[in-house]
């Protein structure tokens, strides 16, 4: 996997569409960068509402990432290390949020956890109100970012293979010990990059949040929702905050890349 030497050259024309593709991704960032009011940048990104939104975004995304780890690691293990009928179907369904438009995810969540949703009356009886709460934001973020962790980790598990686990088991280690002492350390890079990707996806979540959780400062108005509101009244501030998210995204990529897992 790590040795990637190529002897055969590429046809020269390949570079034109490749460069176009790169330009398509990079030009908009340059365009946005050209609109940033550098003079007031610091002031704009440290306004009270901006910091409130940023802190809400970071807190919810962290909780969502933890939830992704708690739920996603077992899911990846089941998918990578067992085989059962219909596994392919289960995998496809679990990965659905990856390709689903987030606003559709939001509607689905609304009709499940909303007041009149599938579980609405049960939750109500327990005194739990999810809609319009920070919990709704976390739920939406977890919903959309879980597949990122599962895919990364399942890939890492498969490429790591089960040999060491078999050896450990043959030496008398119990399944939990094998998982803790062999499997986890082996796939740690994949796990880290999966977690970082999930965090990034959670941080960027917009569609499901605005549909399911609403938008209120300090409770549900995360950074993307804040930017969406702000671009109308204060475009300069919206651009400045967008740049903050771009920087976060670049940091995330820098973090996630060293992991050798392919996904």
């Amino acid at each position, binding site marked *: 996997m790590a040795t990637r030497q190529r002897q055969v050259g590429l046809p020269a024309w390949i570079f*034109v569409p490749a460069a*176009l593709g790169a*330009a398509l991704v990079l030009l908009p960032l340059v365009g946005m960068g050209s609109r940033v009011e550098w003079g007031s940048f610091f002031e704009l990104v440290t306004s009270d509402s901006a910091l409130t939104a940023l802190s809400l975004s970071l807190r919810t995304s962290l909780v969502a990432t933890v939830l992704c780890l708690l739920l996603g690691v077992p899911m990846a293990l089941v998918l990578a290390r067992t085989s059962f009928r219909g596994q392919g179907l289960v995998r496809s369904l679990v990965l659905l949020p990856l390709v689903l438009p987030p606003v559709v995810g939001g509607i689905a969540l609304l009709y499940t956890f909303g*007041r*009149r949703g599938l579980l609405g009356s049960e939750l109500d009886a327990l005194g739990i109100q999810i809609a319009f709460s920070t919990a709704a934001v976390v739920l939406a973020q977890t919903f959309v970012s879980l597949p990122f962790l599962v895919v990364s980790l399942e890939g890492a598990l498969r490429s790591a293979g089960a040999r060491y686990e078999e050896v450990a088991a043959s030496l008398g280690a119990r399944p939990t010990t094998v998982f803790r002492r062999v499997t986890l350390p082996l796939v740690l890079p994949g796990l880290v990059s999966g977690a970082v990707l999930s965090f990034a996806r959670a941080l960027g979540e917009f569609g499901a949040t605005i549909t399911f959780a*609403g*938008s209120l400062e300090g409770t549900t108005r995360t950074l993307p929702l804040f930017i969406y*509101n702000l671009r*109308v009244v204060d475009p300069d501030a919206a651009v400045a905050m967008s740049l903050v998210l771009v920087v976060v995204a670049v940091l995330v990529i820098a973090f996630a890349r060293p992991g050798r897992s392919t996904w």
Partner: protein
Amino acid sequence: MKSLVLTAVLALTLPLAACGSDSDGDAGGGSGGETTTLTVYAAASLTATFEEIGKKFEAEHDGVKVEFDFGGSSNLVTQIQEGAPADVFASADTANMDKLVDADLAGGDPQDFATNTLEIATPPDNPTGVASFQDLAKKGLQLVICAPEVPCGAATQTMADNLGVTLKPVSEEQSVTDVLAKVTSGEADAGVVYVTDVTAAGDAVTGVTFPESGDVVNTYPIAPVEGTDAEDLADDFVEFVLGDTGQSILADAGFGQP
């Protein structure tokens, strides 16, 4: 190499941009007479009425197609400022129309064509028994309003200030239709919307009127957008909205006369 890439990008994207803003589109049109497209940016609260007005306008103008972009007025005016291909702009308040005028983008003086007032929308049969604007401040009530930067939010804020009521909404939405969606889905106990939204929603919501609603009146201005390719048609459309047909459709939907 850099300039080559840039040229290539522009070469690829410009034709796309051009077909997006097909203002006096001669493309397509296989069946003889050419069609002209008029693009109208209108406040979300005008959705039903303007679609109807658009159909009537098309019927009276051969080869004309009216396309709408409905949204929060402040969103729309921002998009026009950024070069969106609008021929006509209809705002839900004067503040956002003023932004268009200030940016020298109004092709003529804006004219007021309708007024609207606020009403409370609740899920059918008003389960929480909201009876007045003051009731919206009740503890535990899940209230959804428009964000203060959109016209319905500004009006709600003014109303609350006038009445000395402190609203604690659970969500501030970007357009009046988003507020309505939260009410019709049953997530919110009450939302502050326009009279016309309650009329348009029919059985999906129960409206609660309140006596002070007449104190805060939103006036809707309309104007052609400067630099449109379809200038005459844009003027015609404005006239049509102000004329008998337009006004009667608006009146049926619950809009007031300016």
